[in-house]
């Protein structure tokens, strides 16, 4: 479980996050939604320690991350898997080498065992036949899947996905969403998905946090999301015509 208490982050004069409190539960897909520029990616980067907040703290199983020494932080980070918006695969490595990388850095196992483990992860995301290719030789959706395979290679306790569906077609998006959900259940990870894709929210969102103007504006589940009377949330959720039709259908019963 990850808890965030009173998290505030500023860049110069710009207050990006303002006193965020949230709890992200184990074995569930926790989604952070909000408009572009609302501060959700900054929140994720503060949680994983890429940004240091001015105020507040992040607790991993009750231990404050920013009060840990470097060795403890590295220990926590080895338990984190992250899927980046642009996949962030290493260009000069093959798909297999990308997945093997965290293992070769931290796992005490012979190379053949590492290779087996990497193959298992690639099989899990249905991309085993592309293991010899370089990231530039595969599609965006496949890159995301390789990113997930790399993120789960070390059996992470925490899985972060920053805009996992950006730039993907609807079918591939659903595939990635399903994969994230299955992995969360299978590995019992604390999964945090940063997104503004409402299809993804409706597919996988079990616990949803809405960030607006750097503050936590709303929190609930999928059903509550559709029936909320929060004006800013409704403006965001029902911005698309598809969601407006869903709302109309719901109102008609």
């Amino acid at each position, binding site marked *: 479980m990850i808890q965030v208490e009173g998290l505030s982050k500023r860049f110069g004069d710009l207050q990006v996050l303002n006193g965020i409190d949230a709890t992200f539960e184990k074995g569930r897909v926790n989604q952070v939604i909000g408009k572009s520029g609302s501060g959700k990616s900054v929140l994720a980067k503060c949680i*994983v320690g890429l940004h240091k907040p001015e105020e507040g703290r992040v607790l991993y199983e009750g231990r404050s991350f920013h009060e840990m020494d470097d060795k403890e932080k590295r220990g926590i980070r080895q338990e984190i898997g992250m899927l980046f918006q642009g996949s*962030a695969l290493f*260009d000069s490595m093959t798909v297999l080498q990308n997945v093997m*990388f965290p293992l070769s*850095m931290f796992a005490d196992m012979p190379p053949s065992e590492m290779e087996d483990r990497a193959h298992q992860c690639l099989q899990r995301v249905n991309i085993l036949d592309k293991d010899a290719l370089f990231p530039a030789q595969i599609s965006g959706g496949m890159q995301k899947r390789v990113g997930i395979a790399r993120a789960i290679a070390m059996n992470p306790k925490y899985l972060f996905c920053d805009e996992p569906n950006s730039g993907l077609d609807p079918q591939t998006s659903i595939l990635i969403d399903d994969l994230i959900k299955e992995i969360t259940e299978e590995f019992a990870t604390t999964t945090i998905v940063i997104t503004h894709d409402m299809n993804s929210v409706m597919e996988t969102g079990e616990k949803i946090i809405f960030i607006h103007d750097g503050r936590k504006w709303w929190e609930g589940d999928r059903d509550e999301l559709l029936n909320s009377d929060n004006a800013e949330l409704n403006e965001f959720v029902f911005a698309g015509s598809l969601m407006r039709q869903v709302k109309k259908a719901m109102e008609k019963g």
Partner: protein
Amino acid sequence: MTFLGFPWRPGWLLHPVPSSSAKARAVHSVEVRGRKCDMDLGGRIYKGRAPTRPSESPTTLWAILAPPKGRMGIVFHIGRYFLLIRDIFSRPERMRLYLRRTVEEMDLLGVKSVGIVALLSVFMGAVITIQTSSNIDAAWIPAYVVGFTARQSTILEFSPTIISLILAGKVGSNIAAEIGSMRVKEQIDALDIMGVNSAGYLILPKIVASMLMNPFLVMISMFLGIFGGWLAGVGTGIVSSVDYIHGIQYDFDPYTVTYALIKTVVFAFVIATVAAYQGYYTRGGTREVGISSTKAVVYSNVVILIANYALTQLLLI
């Protein structure tokens, strides 16, 4: 708090000093209905005096070292450079992986630079020989002086310094562009999140590879520079082979080679670390990667020239 006229504050080494004044632009005086007013460059007229900034360009040492907010001062960069060096030399996670990467970098940064170094050295040696010969008019100066001058110029300055400047262009831009691209594509963030010391993993092998390979490149350059001088001298008939070879052996002091190699190792460290610094702190996109690459070459050249002067003073005088 001010001390010696400087606005001192805690953390000044690492943080830029905030801007002291408002968003005013340059102004000049105009007369409106018999009254003196200020007008800015946009044509806006103020009643009385406009809010002005003392000067757009830094006029004091402090202003240069710590410019207004938004621009980082030299002191900031020097401080951050040394913090990066500290991170680079912190304990590696897997020594075996670092060694493998070092061997790869030795090939990329060293072996793949042999061609350009060889080409430059032969032609520069040839030019030194022809220029020396053409500048010696007096009959009482012995012919072997051409070989002697070519040797001294090549070993003392041309091979260690000029080749290092060339390598700063080739290797430095390569390092900055590679690390800068990794930064903008979030690959360095990915390393950090995995718990990998990204500075050490990416930069240390490049530093070690440069410091090991550049002395070999410079030794090759010394040999080929002197050989190029012989080719040009004997080929054009301005000096005989016997005189040239006598000249390159005349009054040889092996310490000059030691001096050149010490310089080369220091320059290699400068090239790798300054370029890596520029790449590692790249922010933005592909345009900024290009800017970092250019800065890497310019700044490492400047630091090499300053270090060249300092080392010459220390080692030769």
